[in-house]
């Protein structure tokens, strides 16, 4: 049984769990490790729920905890037994569900390439691409969440997207030394 306060907390946390799992999986590419990270994040969120600023957005706060844990590498994997059977492999979500549907299959190949290219990005760029492009955080929120100025977020986004594009385009000369954010005329 949950008390009223706990029910309110659950109502604020639970809607974000699927997105937290998606973000964690995109960072770790391993379902079990990702769920370990999410579990760790949720445990901390629950135990420090009262420390949260009340005006703070629960989603941004949860993502900030998860991102911090990821960065600290504190993935307390296998701390307790896994309740889930290990029925998922890293690429499972990418398998073709209906091989007769050519168009769907082609989409899935594109998705697959995109994910492979994403993995080749430097971690900072990958994080920003995910937070902004997939999780719909504003540039300011992504800056706050990762603890860097918004200008840094913009330049990581800019470099990350350019790099991703060139990787997908098969450009073998992808360089790390693209000039920093500038105005194009």
């Amino acid at each position, binding site marked *: 049984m949950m008390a009223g306060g706990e029910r309110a907390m659950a109502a604020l946390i639970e809607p974000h769990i699927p997105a937290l799992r998606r973000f964690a999986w995109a960072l770790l590419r391993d379902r079990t490790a990702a769920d370990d990270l999410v579990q760790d994040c949720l445990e901390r969120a629950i135990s420090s729920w009262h420390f949260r600023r009340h005006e703070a957005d629960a989603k941004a706060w949860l993502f900030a905890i998860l991102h911090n844990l990821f960065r600290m590498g504190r993935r307390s994997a296998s701390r307790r037994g896994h309740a889930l059977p290990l029925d998922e492999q890293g690429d499972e979500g990418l398998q073709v569900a209906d091989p007769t549907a050519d168009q769907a299959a082609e*989409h899935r190949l594109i998705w697959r390439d995109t994910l492979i290219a994403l993995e080749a990005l430097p971690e900072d760029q990958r994080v920003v691409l995910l937070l902004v492009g997939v999780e719909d955080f504003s540039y300011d929120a992504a800056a706050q969440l990762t603890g860097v100025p918004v200008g840094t977020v913009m330049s990581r986004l800019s470099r990350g997207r350019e790099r991703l594009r060139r990787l997908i385009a098969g450009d073998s000369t992808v360089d790390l030394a693209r000039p920093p954010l500038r105005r194009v005329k």
Partner: protein
Amino acid sequence: MTVNGDPLPVGEDDLQGWVDGRLGQQRNALVEAWFAENPETAARFRAMAAQRHALRAALGEGQAEPVPARLRVANLLAARRQARLHGVRRIAAVAAWLVIGGGLGWAGHGLLVPQGAAVTATRPMVAEALSAHRVFAADAVRPVEVAAAQEAQLVGWLSSRLGRPLEAPDLAQLGYHLLGGRLLAGAAGDPAAQLMYAGPGAERLTVYLRADRAGGAGPEFRFAEVPAQGITAFWWVDRGFGFAVAAEGLERLALQRVAESVHRQVALSQAL
């Protein structure tokens, strides 16, 4: 390119905003017009927008699957209650043992917190801690003198100035990480140290300590506050040293948990 009435040329941030579909109508039109004149750049950014969609689609795939039981809040809460029950039993057992032995040590400490009474700070050490919290916790630019990245240096420096081996308490379990610290002058001219922590939402918490040989206080927790500013602290004096853990707008119980953790770590490091 410039357009009448809009002096800002199209910038990289506009282009990223376009990829994310976050531009206002006017700005969006400006970028589209600019694309018409710069087809090569336009092709690059259209590819990025397509890749953004592909990424969302690829990652959105597994979203329909149910959340595993171990990630349900209710289950996590139940596990936590179980663990806490064990903890309480253990502390109770230790406390009972110590009482039988004729003394109550710090382990029973959390049980002795006076409930309810809000004591306003009159002790200089506590007043300093509260005002130091007010001044520095609000400083967004330079909250600390020495950052946590130089923790060894910071700790060595503060230890030598305070004349006491010091360790920065680890509050990660409670969601706080060390930002750094600074040296301050206590009222009686004694050097004092302030350690600053940031919580998960970047909220600040400080630990203030200095020699405090004035009598009238011991290792039991006392509560102090500046009601007008919402700054509260738990403080205690242990073997000639005063400690205060302060925060703003934090629930009393949550602050107490941090204070207990600091107290325990200080007690342990002294025992070594």
